[in-house]
């Protein structure tokens, strides 16, 4: 299979974008990606497109993107894999390029969460994303799905509420300087611990905001990448992992089996170890999930995540900065866009152009977890001539 690289990446600022519908957002995201290409790329050079969107609005997704982005002459496919949608859309596109199907393709991720009233968002989505007979009547809301895992992990590894709180503190500090972030203000551990409770152990500031947004990347084969840039970012490892969908059927709630499976596939394909990663964008939908993910990805051993965050190792400036963009918590989480936006951040990091730049970053990793905890996607990227 051929080498595959990102040759362009762009996004719109995330937020409550009441002034933009989904058609506007996807068009602007693709435009931003095209404009980021060092040697330029014309829309007509794109041979196929993949569109990651979790919640369909304003009509049939692939057609909407083809129309809004003026891509009428190429195939467009909608990808949906819960919150792993973005990275899985990249994976699908990349494999098509690697297999020789096309040389240049586009991946766009977007979600228009705020066209639904804020009070209805969770329940509407829950109606189609829970077993109708078994889990839906239990009012198993999304924070509860993740909290059941985090609670068990905290119990087994002796993790405190304060450790959880350090995650939004770090991510808000990073997001404050990111012009694309949804929430750009600092929070303290005291703020997080005092915030209204949502589902124990999560309070309001442990949870992602409701965000709109779109992001796009341009994927090219190794044969043509240098036509577009002297510094492509190589897609070295991609994996998607699954887990049983019902909590009672999962073997061990103190870990995310989907993340482990996705990581194993991605690291195996890339041929590197977790210790080789210089910068990562992880799925901090809820604070404790980021901590558990350090362990599930192999960045540290079992039960060592609290130490990793305590020592500042995962802050920009530390030895393994996590979520320099601000993460889902500060940058925002339009589910279809998130994974693609993570790739945008790592693309910039591995080219030395990120806002919160990690010095000398050569290997980067992105991670999503969703469904509610039954699917994960991991992408590993390498810089050129690092």
């Amino acid at each position, binding site marked *: 299979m051929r080498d595959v690289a990102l040759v362009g990446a762009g996004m719109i600022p995330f937020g409550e974008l009441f002034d933009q519908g989904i058609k506007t957002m996807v068009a602007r995201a693709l435009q931003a990606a095209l404009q980021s290409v060092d040697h330029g790329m014309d829309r007509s050079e794109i041979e196929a497109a993949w569109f990651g969107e979790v919640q369909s609005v304003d009509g049939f997704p692939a057609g909407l993107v083809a129309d809004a982005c003026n891509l009428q002459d190429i195939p467009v496919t909608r990808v949906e894999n819960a919150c792993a949608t973005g990275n899985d859309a990249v994976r699908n596109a990349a494999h098509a390029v690697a297999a020789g199907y096309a040389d240049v393709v586009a991946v766009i991720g977007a979600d228009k969460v705020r066209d639904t009233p804020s009070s209805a968002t969770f*329940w509407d989505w829950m109606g189609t994303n829970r077993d109708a*007979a078994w889990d*839906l009547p239990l*009012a198993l809301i999304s924070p509860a799905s993740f909290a*059941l895992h985090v609670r068990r992990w905290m119990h087994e590894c002796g993790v405190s509420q304060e450790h959880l709180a350090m995650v939004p503190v770090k991510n808000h500090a990073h997001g404050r300087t990111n012009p694309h972030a949804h929430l750009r203000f600092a929070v303290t551990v005291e703020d997080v611990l005092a915030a209204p409770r*949502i589902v124990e152990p999560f309070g309001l500031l442990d949870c992602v905001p409701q965000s709109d947004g779109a992001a796009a990347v341009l994927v090219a084969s190794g044969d043509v990448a240098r036509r577009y840039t002297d510094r492509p970012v190589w897609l070295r490892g991609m994996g998607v992992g699954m887990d049983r969908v019902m*909590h009672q059927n999962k073997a061990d709630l103190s870990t995310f089996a989907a993340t482990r499976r996705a990581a194993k596939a991605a690291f195996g394909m890339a041929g590197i170890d977790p210790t080789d990663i210089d910068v990562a964008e992880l799925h901090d939908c809820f604070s404790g999930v980021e901590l558990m993910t350090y362990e599930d990805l192999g960045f540290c051993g079992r039960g060592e995540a609290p130490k990793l965050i305590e020592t500042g190792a995962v802050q920009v400036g530390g030895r393994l900065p996590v979520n320099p963009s601000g993460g889902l918590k500060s940058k925002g989480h339009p589910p279809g866009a998130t994974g693609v936006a993570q790739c945008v951040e790592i693309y910039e990091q591995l080219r030395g152009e990120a806002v919160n730049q990690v010095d000398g970053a050569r290997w980067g990793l992105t991670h999503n977890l969703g469904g509610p905890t039954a699917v994960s996607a991991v992408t590993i990227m390498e810089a050129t001539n690092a």
Partner: protein
Amino acid sequence: MAQLRALATHQPAWVDERGNRVLGEDEDVATLAVDVGRTALGLCDLDIDRVVVVTQRPDYLTGPLAEVVAHGLGLPADTPVAERLGGAPAVLDELTRPSTATVLVVAVSPDAPAGAGAVVVAPSDDVDGHALGGAEVARRSVPVEVHAVGQSTPQVYDDPRLLRDRGWATAVAALARDDAEVLVVGPPVRATRRLSTIGDLDPIPVTGAAAAVFGLAALLSRASRSRLVAVQNGAAAAVDVDPAQVPMTAVARPAVPRGTTTRRPGDIPLSVAAYERAFEAKVGLLGQRCGCGHLHHPPRVNCPACGAFDDAVLEPLPRQAIVYSVVAVQVPVPAKASPYALAVVDLEDSGVRLLTHVTDAQPDGVAIGSAGTLVLRKVADRQGIPDYGYAFQPAEEVSA
């Protein structure tokens, strides 16, 4: 004359501001019937031919009570389940009619002070049971309380002394016997205190249908014959109760004060097709045992361990459980009172886990490692249709 073989009484856990026992949000006539019915069935080893549920305030004119009670009690799905509208006198009628069948008579009083009772009655020729003799009925029309269909509360003619004198006292006078002390049940104890001639009994903690069973339990333990008189408006029924050794259990959970709850307006979607497919395993608490030996829940078309198709049978799951993980939801959600706790519990010695609500306890009264039992509860009301399943009832609450 039917023979009493086992008796159980049950009081729900929740108490209101005045200390009265009340049903939880997840309880109703059906769940109370299953709670007390299971206790009674556990005291004797008989096959039940028929179930009768007596209550003065049913939840539904047309509803799923019969199938919920049959599956919840673990009885064959074709077991007849009759619903009878009535109070304490109707319960005595069910306990004293001649019978060739083994019947589980369940009496449910869902309104505060709430409770339920259940009695297993065997056929008249059963030698191990105890018969209630001296059955008599008196009926006068004194419609002080009338509850019309479609009205949420009864009409009450406000004349307590009329009711006591012309409704009850007249009936007691007609039904009493010289050779036995009288216990009057049905109305609140403070209202009937003077009509009962037994002075040294603990007050009957329920009113209505269930009071007949609570009264029976109290009198079976006395040293000599008593007369139980059940009254409701102007209707009354009486039986002689001789001392007897009938297997009996009284269940009264430690009281849990009912706290403030919130609920977000709106509903949870319902698919009756999906509900119907899941019903047998969900309300019967049945797991699926594959030919390879693997036990799993909920049932599915293929075994998650060996992949075999259509090679499994349903079997009852154990009800003792230990909490594996638990979280408390604080935000308002549609169709459920918040705060509430969601737990994943390990079912004893089975390798099977269940995701459940926590019941009969404060949401923060349960921790990882807490032990308890699975009990049938109403999990949700979805578009007006009740949805039943199992909830985790802790053996004891932990302090927050």
